[in-house]
Structure formats: structure tokens, C-alpha cells
């Protein structure tokens, strides 16, 4: 994962709430077995039907409950590969939020009013280290889990980090915790 910190530049606006991952990347593009090549299919139906126009600026601002629905990580890949580096919205679905942070793609939660101000300003600067978004005429702070922030700033590999706790995992498996659940290979 690439490290991120400051994201600065023009703002694209998608003024809708409940933008679900079926819209972000429609199902027909989930048949691919690769991680790349999704950018051109972003909002496939909306863009082809002329419902929305989006420039690949670094910052996207949208409405509440962004990324709802399906867990498809392809949605984050598509947004990122299209050119966005961060999405600012009043709320995100839990899975989309988590998927974003695994890809060096920054979800920023700010109140609806603030989102509208940033959309109107058209230019903004997102600073992960200081947890701020600033724009011509304003600045706001955002919350982010300290551990998620550390990993984003360092571009750290989740799996490699967890494998540093290999001993703890082995100890867990050797204890009562290791006995939960079925043995799928013996069905």
C-alpha cells in the first residue's frame, strides 16, 4: 500500500446520498479476476446515461452513507484508479470505509454542511497527519482511528504487521479458542 498524507487539489462533487457500490462499479465488471483496470468503468451507467459528469480530481465530495451495499472492494479500486485519492462525505458504510483504508484511499467524515462548503469552494487540502481539511474560507478537523491513521501514513502492509504476532496467534490456536467451529475439510 502506498503511503499517503497530504492530498490537495480540485474537488469533484457527486451531490447524492446513499451512493451504493452497485452504482460505483456495476456487477458486470466484477467478473474480472484482476485488481486493476476498473477506473474506466466507474459509475458506468450514470456516466454513460449522462446523469453525472465527473473529472478525476484528487478529491471527491458526496452525500451521506457513501459506499453502501455490496462489500465489493472493486468499488474502491475503481474510484482510486479513476484518479480520486480521497472521498469526503457525512457518513460511509462500514465495509466501504474499511476497504478504503486497506488501499491507501482516504475516507474523510465531515458534517453535511461542511461537505457542502468544500464542494462550493472547489479546491481543498486534506492533511491526514493533522486530521484537517482546509479550503478557501474554512478549515475543519476530522476523526480517524489512530491505528488506521498510522498504517495509512506509513503505507504499512496489514498482513506483514499481523504476522509479527504469529506467536500470539499460535498461542490462541493452542488454547480453548482453537477448538471453536467445524472442521470444513472433514465434511
Amino acid at each position, binding site marked *: 500500500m502506498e503511503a499517503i498524507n497530504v492530498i490537495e487539489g480540485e474537488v469533484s462533487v457527486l451531490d447524492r446520498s*446513499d451512493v451504493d457500490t452497485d452504482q460505483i462499479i456495476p456487477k458486470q465488471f466484477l467478473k474480472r*479476476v484482476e485488481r486493476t483496470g476498473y477506473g474506466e468503468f466507474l459509475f458506468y*451507467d450514470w456516466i454513460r446515461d449522462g446523469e453525472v459528469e465527473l473529472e478525476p480530481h484528487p478529491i471527491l465530495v458526496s452525500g451521506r452513507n457513501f459506499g453502501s451495499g455490496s462489500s465489493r472492494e472493486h468499488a474502491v479500486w475503481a474510484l482510486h484508479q479513476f484518479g480520486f485519492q480521497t472521498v469526503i462525505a457525512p457518513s460511509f458504510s462500514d465495509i466501504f470505509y474499511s*476497504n478504503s483504508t486497506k488501499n491507501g484511499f482516504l475516507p474523510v467524515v465531515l458534517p453535511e454542511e461542511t461537505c457542502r462548503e468544500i464542494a462550493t469552494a472547489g479546491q481543498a487540502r486534506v492533511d491526514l497527519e493533522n486530521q484537517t481539511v482546509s479550503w478557501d474560507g474554512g478549515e475543519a478537523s476530522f476523526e480517524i482511528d489512530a491505528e488506521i491513521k498510522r498504517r495509512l501514513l506509513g503505507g504499512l502492509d*496489514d498482513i506483514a504487521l499481523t504476522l509479527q*504476532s504469529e506467536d500470539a496467534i499460535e498461542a490462541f490456536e493452542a488454547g480453548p479458542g482453537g477448538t471453536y*467451529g467445524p472442521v470444513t475439510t472433514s465434511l
Partner: protein
Amino acid sequence: MPKTMFDKIWEAHEVKENLLYIDLHLVHEVTSPQAFEGLRMSGRKLRRPDKTVATADHNVPTDGTPTAALIKDALSRKQVETLEKNAADFGVPVYSLGSETQGIVHVIGPELGLTQPGMTIVCGDSHTSTHGAFGALAFGIGTSEVEHVMATQTLNQPHPKTMRINYTGRLGEGVTSKDLILATIGKLGTSGMTGYVVEYAGEAIEALTMEQRMTVCNMTIEGGGKAGMIAPDEITFEYMRGKAGVPEDFEAAVERWKQLPTDEGASFDTEVEIDASAISPMVTWGTTPGMVTQVTATVPDPEKMDSPADKEAAERALQYMGLEAGTPMEEIRPERVFIGSCTNSRISDLREAAGAIKGRKVADSVRAMVVPGSALVKTQAEEEGLDKIFEEAGFEWRGAGCSMCLGMNPDTLFEGERCASTSNRNFEGRQGKGGRTHLVSPTMATAAAIEGHFVDIRNWS
């Protein structure tokens, strides 16, 4: 200190702070190929194949195609074949197309006895919340997390908040668990449960069968919830008894599972109360599951919405759905009916739908299909003669899979077609580009197929 069921499961699975051990990893063909590829690229093994199981469901045709190699759609074929190869390479058991235990991942887990109380269960699919009906902590994850679980059998998880929804009273005659969860999402909104693990409780929940409870937990994600849970009880244990994957010493396991329910006096971050006896059969009118109303009501007026955002969203939804405010829901005429999906494709759903037919025929204006959730459900239904009841009435009887819930296979709506669907999402284009989805219960879908329009199942004879 009294604990919630969630607390008990979380604490029993913490390898260290916020690193959870995963007891069961369910895998399907759409969200796994990049994860398997990631393992290969980094030279990592899949840590616990014995806690992992794979099936092909999202992409499979339901026309009786017997094996992956014969799938006509080249991309779908490649994806299912890739799953088979990955499973073989990494030692994971796989139930692919043609297997007698193939099916929707959230249908086969419970029916094979893999889903058990007290477990942590994940899958690269948002409807993993289904398994919480057994008193498990089960939630959907993305492909990076799928790879993480494959490599480490653990997940990094920030501690979620907890919510309990207490349902007072009982559901009325003809009102189903599908209506209960749709009404709940209608009340709380599509992000009302975001950040929460939700425990469903109360008399109305205790009275539900296991398959009805799965419908409730399944749609937790449509309210934004991370996971839904229901305390295990005798109904749970009876359902599980004798299933293939359950513990050998079942009675000893039952004694352990009886310790799981939330202790008296345990506290939740949020508690909500809903009167179950006031819930009616529900139908969605818009393009999110929260855009839902009683079948006896009319299409709502965007002008009367609370906020500008709600008004705008409703206006756009009505335009997409081709509906006008004020139209009685019962006058809406679907041309397609879909009975299936991980929400409502289990044997009891099919029994209820078939039972409502009573010798009647599907309306000439309607094309209706039934897609069993698994090959085992299909076999069971055929043994009971349900397939004949459906076919004689004019329903198509198909093979098992996710099918028209998301239309990745050839089962899709055409542009502008309107569908009464027992699935879980009425998003724009979900069942096919330009398709219009109304979410309902299996009996409501059956009645709509026969009458050619929605009817109040309670007054339908």
C-alpha cells in the same frame, strides 16, 4: 459485570487487542481471486484450509448447466474455474457448480451445520450478517481482508458499538420476518445501524423459526449494521441437530452455547423499541431498502419529506421507478417476480410461497421464477413436490445460485421492467440496467405473480 452476547464472543476471540480470531471463512468466486493471487505473489500459505470453505454462487447460471467448464459466459466461466483451481492449490474444500452441496454461501453454511453459535464468521460478501441468526458474530469483508484472513486467520477490527432492538408484541397473521426487517430499516434509515453490531430481541424474534431469523439478520447490512445477532435457543439447537458439520458431542456444545445470550442488566450503546404487532406487509417503492411502506399505503410524496436531501433522493427514486406520488401500492403492476436470494430462498420460504398458490396461475402479464438457495434446498423441494406446484402455476423452476438478486448471471431484468423480488436490494440497476425492483416477502411475491399487482396478503384468499 453483565455482558452482551457480542461482548462474550468478542472477548473469546481476541488474540490481542482488536485482533480477532476467525473460526470460519466462507469464500466465493467473485471477491476471492485477487486475494488468492495476493497470497501467491507474496509466497504465503492459506493458514487454515480446515476453517475455510468455498462455493460458486454469484456467477453461476441457473439453467441446469452441470459444470463450470460448460458455463457459456466466458468471464463467468473463467471466474468459477479460477475458484476451483485456487481451492485445489490451497487445499480449500469447494462446492462448485454441479456439486450436490453447491449453493448461495449464506444458505449452505447453516444447512451444512458449519454455522454455529459463538463463532466468528466472515466472508467477502456483505450479507454474511445472515449467520448471526445462530448467535454468531458474522460480518462481510472486502478482498484485502479476505486475503488477510487467508494468511493469518485473524482480522484487525476496531471495536464496534452495540445496539439492541427490542420488538414488543408479535407479528400479525400474514406478516413475515421480511416485513419486520423492512419496517425496521424504514424506521431507522439505511445508515441507522452504521457502526453497530445489532442484537434483535423480544417476543416477536423468539417466536421466529431459524430460517425467518436468518432473513432478519441477513438484511442488517441494508440498515448499515456491521452484524446482526439473535440469541441461540432451543429453536436454534433443534435446527442444527443432525447437520453434517455440528460438534460430535452435540449436547455438550448446547450447554456451552446456552451461556452465550446477553446477561440480564448488560448495557448497549443504543436501545431501540419497535412494536412488532403494528407491522404490516411491506413493499419498497424506491431505490434503497429504506424507501419502504405498507402495502396498504400509497407511494409517498417527496414534497412531504423531512429534509432537502430526502426530498431530492425520493424525487430521483420515483423518476427511476416510474412511479407517481399518491399511487396506491396495490395498483403497482410488476411484470417479473423473483423468489430467491440469500434473504428468502430456503426451504421454508419455498414452502410458504408454494402454499399460497392454491391451484391458481401466474397472471399472463407476469414472468415469474423461483431460484432455490442451494442444491440441497432444490432437492428437498423436489422431494416435496414444490417444483410441480410452481411449474403448474406457471413459475420457472431453476437451479441454485444468487441469480437475479444481483444479475451477474444471465437472469436479469430488461430496461424498465418492474419486479417483485424477495431479495435484499432495490438499488438502481441491481437486477439489470434500468430494472425496477420492489422488495417483498415470498408470499407477497407469490400473490403479486398471480394477481399481476401487489395485494395485501392478509386479505387475499
